[in-house]
């Protein structure tokens, strides 16, 4: 196969079957799976594969349910109700099945699972540093070429509109890379808008923008207003232990209805007025050591500032986790996690997770299971596609750079990434716009975001030093517009999407909201979901 290039040559120029963008759980499982299928694989991470992303510094429960039909059905139904009945039973079952098998594989490969009080292996949670250190080792052992500190700037597209690789920079070397590939997996995570939620500042929606530049569609972008509790001063957005918290106002009185689960919106309403405090006073002393063992990182901020969270109050805040703990992302149209663009596959938080949890995620466990499963399906799908494309020897394949904003010459001066980032944050952080939504406020905000996008569109290319930041700013702007356009389209309250002006679920809106577009953002409802009577009765 010969390739006609219409992009600048790069310091590092590679040709491969599969290119995986992102080196978190989804990207590493995708790379492993593609390599296992016999493909040549390159994995490019914006940071360092093994520490990048929301999982590595954190740790997560896993949606791990043994192969017992009743337990699995119960697991599916419990989340389905929270998620507003947008989940899919078949996808839920295949995720539970593959996740279970994959956790067994991790155990075989040396993940140090603990034993529970009866001496049985406890496979329901993963410590982030251990998990991702092992995943890096497995990926390297499988012969995957890993490019660290190599953010992608744009995808390459062939003459038929199919994904054909990507181009980016090696930011610690000050040069650039291009990888021509038969297929590309987008595993770049969700978008948390640089809120400093734990591990989330690499998650700026870059892959979503790149995919949209090839015409990819999204689903469920209205489910993008997840906020996590953290100490007001710190980054540790782990919420499980707040189950044992009492939330108080500055005077020390408990706030009625405030809770981590089922009362987080109450915390948001009080935070809009002033400080809110928490104390883990409901944890029996006998449980406290278990809490430390389970989540050592939760205690790091407290130990370092000298607060005992069990006996002392501390101020809390809510940090936006956007689509990371929301469920919206790239639309999946095949069992192999194909997107609507040929040759482009999606995995993990970059893809919609509505298939297993509809419009609500309250914890990492579904996302963890989804990353493990979708990663492997996307990797295998990309391997199959990529090898077929590359087997078309003798044909000439054009690979043109497909990026837009901040990468091409414009009519106006290059924009300031930092200023754009602040403008987007001002639209997506406030509870009164994003947490508690209404048509008026969403519309106003969207008008400003559309105007911002139009100004980015006419700006000149960013300098080499600013290109990564400028593309992050552009991606955040684009993601915010898909979010709010979708939120406007869903004129009801369902899952995490709350419309103050439409406080009830509307049975006529039991569908996904699909979206996409750059200069003109569009939304359209999917066909109505049909649900077997047996499921509804249960």
């Amino acid at each position, binding site marked *: 196969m010969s390739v006609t290039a219409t992009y600048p040559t790069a310091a590092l120029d590679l040709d491969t079957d599969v290119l995986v963008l992102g080196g978190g759980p989804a990207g590493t499982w995708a790379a492993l799976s593609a390599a296992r299928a016999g493909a040549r694989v390159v994995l490019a991470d914006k940071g360092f594969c093994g*520490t990048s992303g929301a999982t590595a510094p954190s740790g997560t429960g896993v949606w791990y349910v043994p192969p017992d039909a009743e337990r699995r059905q119960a697991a599916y139904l419990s989340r389905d109700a929270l998620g507003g009945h947008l989940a899919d039973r078949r996808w839920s079952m295949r995720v539970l099945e593959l996740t279970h098998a994959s956790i067994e594989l991790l155990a075989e490969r040396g993940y140090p*699972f*603990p034993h529970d009080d009866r001496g049985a292996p406890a496979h*329901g949670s993963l410590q982030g540093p251990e998990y991702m250190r092992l995943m890096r080792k497995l990926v390297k052992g499988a012969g995957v070429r890993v490019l660290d500190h190599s953010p992608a700037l744009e995808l390459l597209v062939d003459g038929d509109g199919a994904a054909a690789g990507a181009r980016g920079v090696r930011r610690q070397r000050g040069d650039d890379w291009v990888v021509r590939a038969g297929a590309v997996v987008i595993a770049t995570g969700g978008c948390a808008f640089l809120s400093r939620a*734990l591990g989330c*500042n690499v998650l700026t929606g870059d892959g979503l923008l790149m995919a949209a530049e090839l015409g990819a569609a999204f689903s469920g972008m209205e489910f993008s207003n997840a906020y996590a509790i953290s100490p007001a001063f710190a980054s*540790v957005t782990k919420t*499980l232990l707040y189950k044992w918290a009492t939330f108080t106002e500055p005077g020390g009185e408990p706030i009625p209805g405030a809770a981590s689960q089922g009362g987080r919106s109450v915390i948001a309403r009080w935070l809009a007025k002033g400080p809110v405090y928490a104390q883990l006073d409901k944890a029996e002393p006998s449980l406290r050591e278990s809490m430390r063992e389970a989540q050592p990182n939760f205690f*790091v901020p407290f130990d*370092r500032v000298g607060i005992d969270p069990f006996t002392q109050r501390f101020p809390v805040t809510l940090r936006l986790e956007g689509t990371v703990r929301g469920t919206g992302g790239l639309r999946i149209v095949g069992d192999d996690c194909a997107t609507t663009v040929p040759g482009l596959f999606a995995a993990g938080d970059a893809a919609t997770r509505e298939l297993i949890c509809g419009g609500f995620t309250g914890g990492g466990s579904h996302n963890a299971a989804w990353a493990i499963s979708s990663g492997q399906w996307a990797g295998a799908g990309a391997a199959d596609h990529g090898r077929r494309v590359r087997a078309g020897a003798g044909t000439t394949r054009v690979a043109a750079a497909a990026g837009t904003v901040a990468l091409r010459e414009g009519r106006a001066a290059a924009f300031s990434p930092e200023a754009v980032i602040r403008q987007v944050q001002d639209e997506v952080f406030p509870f009164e716009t994003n947490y508690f939504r209404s048509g008026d406020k969403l519309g106003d905000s969207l008008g400003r975001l559309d105007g911002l996008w139009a100004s980015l569109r006419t700006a000149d290319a960013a300098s080499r030093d600013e290109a990564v930041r400028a593309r992050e700013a552009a991606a955040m702007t684009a993601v915010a517009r898909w979010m709010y356009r979708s939120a406007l389209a869903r004129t009801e309250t369902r899952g995490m999407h709350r419309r103050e002006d439409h406080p009830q679920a509307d049975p006529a809106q039991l569908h996904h909201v699909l979206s996409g577009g750059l200069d003109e953002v569009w939304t359209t409802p999917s066909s109505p979901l049909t649900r077997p009577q047996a499921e509804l009765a249960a």
Partner: protein
Amino acid sequence: MIELVSAERCTGCNICVSVCPTNVFDAAPKGVAGGLPAIARGQDCQTCFMCELYCPEDALYVAPEADQPVLVDEPTLVRAGLMGGYRAAIGWTRDTAARRRIDSTFRLIKGF
């Protein structure tokens, strides 16, 4: 945010430069005795503590304050056992390796 690269402890191995997901450090200059990685882009630190976990010398300190820099004093941190304290807690030091297998999440979540 990352506030300290200890001149006393750092060997200039540059592991932190590699593992930092947000590229906060510049590498220690080559061939310079006692050269240290520099905190070149501290404002990009996301306070994820990964550099501390990977530092074999416990030479780094990430202050928990995520939104603005704070002043730290190395002797005070050492006395308080905070340098390397998190790495020890997760079992990533030789003396604490048994802790890698301790994860009592199953006691906190129903159904595990």
